[in-house]
């Protein structure tokens, strides 16, 4: 048990002394996850809104596909993105392999189905009286669309948090697409995997504490939002 305790103590020390290697992994994670969240939300919210709001042929099939993608293994996404970004791949010339934007592309693919599915659910679950209310208050079609998104805002934020939780804790994409390059694309999760493999528990625990803190923050915020979303 001693090594665990030692690991925790060293872990806190690394965090509080500002260890550069530890913080490099933290910043790489923040960079990749921020980029991927930006793209997941920018693309996913309109698509989810469309899927939940409109009725069209093939909607059920599309919903089934999106729901299936929710459980897409991260290593498979990593493999696909790697295949596209590798030198011989269709996007090999972009130079995105083993870079933070490359990791963000993979993480966007991971977060998108979550945002789309949860936004669609949120919009479908809105009160049927909402469009009548907005129309009879004089809103234009564009104002109705925007107000509908605003009505679903707590559920959309919840979707963002669920996506962030999945993105920040994935290993497969970061490992395959990022390559776990020290000072460059080594994220919290790939660093934990590597350091644990080397028997260096302290850094692994320090980074684990950061991940747990993120998970705690996300959960606290999500609990508050869930209460508002169901009211």
């Amino acid at each position, binding site marked *: 048990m001693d090594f665990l305790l030692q690991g925790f103590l060293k872990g806190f020390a690394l965090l509080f002394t500002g260890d550069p290697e530890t913080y490099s992994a933290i910043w790489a994670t923040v960079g990749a996850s921020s980029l991927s969240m930006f793209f997941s939300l920018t693309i996913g919210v309109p698509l989810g809104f469309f899927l939940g709001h409109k009725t069209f042929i093939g909607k059920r099939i599309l919903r089934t596909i999106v729901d299936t993608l929710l459980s897409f293994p991260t290593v498979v996404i990593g493999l696909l993105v790697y295949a596209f970004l590798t030198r011989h791949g269709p996007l090999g010339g972009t130079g995105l392999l083993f870079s933070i934007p490359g990791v963000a592309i993979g993480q966007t693919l991971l977060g998108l189905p979550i945002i789309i599915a949860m936004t669609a659910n949120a919009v479908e679950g809105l*009160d049927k009286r909402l469009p009548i*209310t907005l*129309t*009879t208050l*004089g*809103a234009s079609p564009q104002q109705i669309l925007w*107000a509908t998104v605003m009505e679903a*805002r707590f559920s959309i934020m919840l979707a963002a948090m669920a996506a962030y939780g999945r993105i920040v804790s994935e290993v497969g994409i970061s490992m395959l697409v990022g390559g776990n390059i020290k000072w460059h694309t080594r994220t919290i999760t790939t660093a934990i995997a590597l350091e644990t493999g080397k028997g260096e528990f302290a850094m692994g625990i320090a980074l684990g504490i950061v991940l747990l803190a993120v998970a705690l923050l996300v959960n606290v915020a999500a609990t508050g939002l869930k209460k508002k979303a169901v009211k």
Partner: protein
Amino acid sequence: MSTPVISLNKTRQVFSGRQVLSIDELDINQGDIIGLAGPNGSGKSTLLRILAFLDAPTSGTLSFMGAETSIKPGAVHRQVTLLVQEPYLLKRTVYANVAYGLKVRKKSDITTKVHNALIQVGLDPESFSSRQWYELSGGEAQRVALAARLVLKPKVLLMDEPTASLDTKSAKLIRKAALKARTDNRTSLVVASHDLDWLGKVSDHIIYLEHGSIVETS
């Protein structure tokens, strides 16, 4: 004689092959208060939805200010508004709910207008403006929804069972507010209700509907 605000001519509404409304002629003039009475399923709500330009009639004409009008969200909905039986409040504060219609119209002096509308429905602006939508009782929510419509000074205010789930005090406040809208802005009111006593106190005419047709006007 001035042009009616809304008029129906040979209007029929058919759902799944069944005729639910058949009105040969109905004019809503400016400042009119018309009560709609009749049993459940008599077509009161269907008529209100047509008058609110939410549903197009299957046949016949529906005109606003003398011109046949589309039901697409647009200019007419800025003049004609509907308060449903259990109104929906936006997931915002009371102030934001009442201000919504003014904001989409890009009106000025919104704070004062919201303040006055809340007073008109008997809600203290100081204590209610910042309340969230989920902090209201049923009667308060109904009055906020009414304030959100009165503040727009509509040409026509349609109300579907506005007092069905309210206590006597709230019902009285809603009646007072609706009557004031007619006095101050010459708003026409069309009120569907089972409460004949309440209808009798506010209406100039009461139209009795049965099986979708007008059977009596008093």
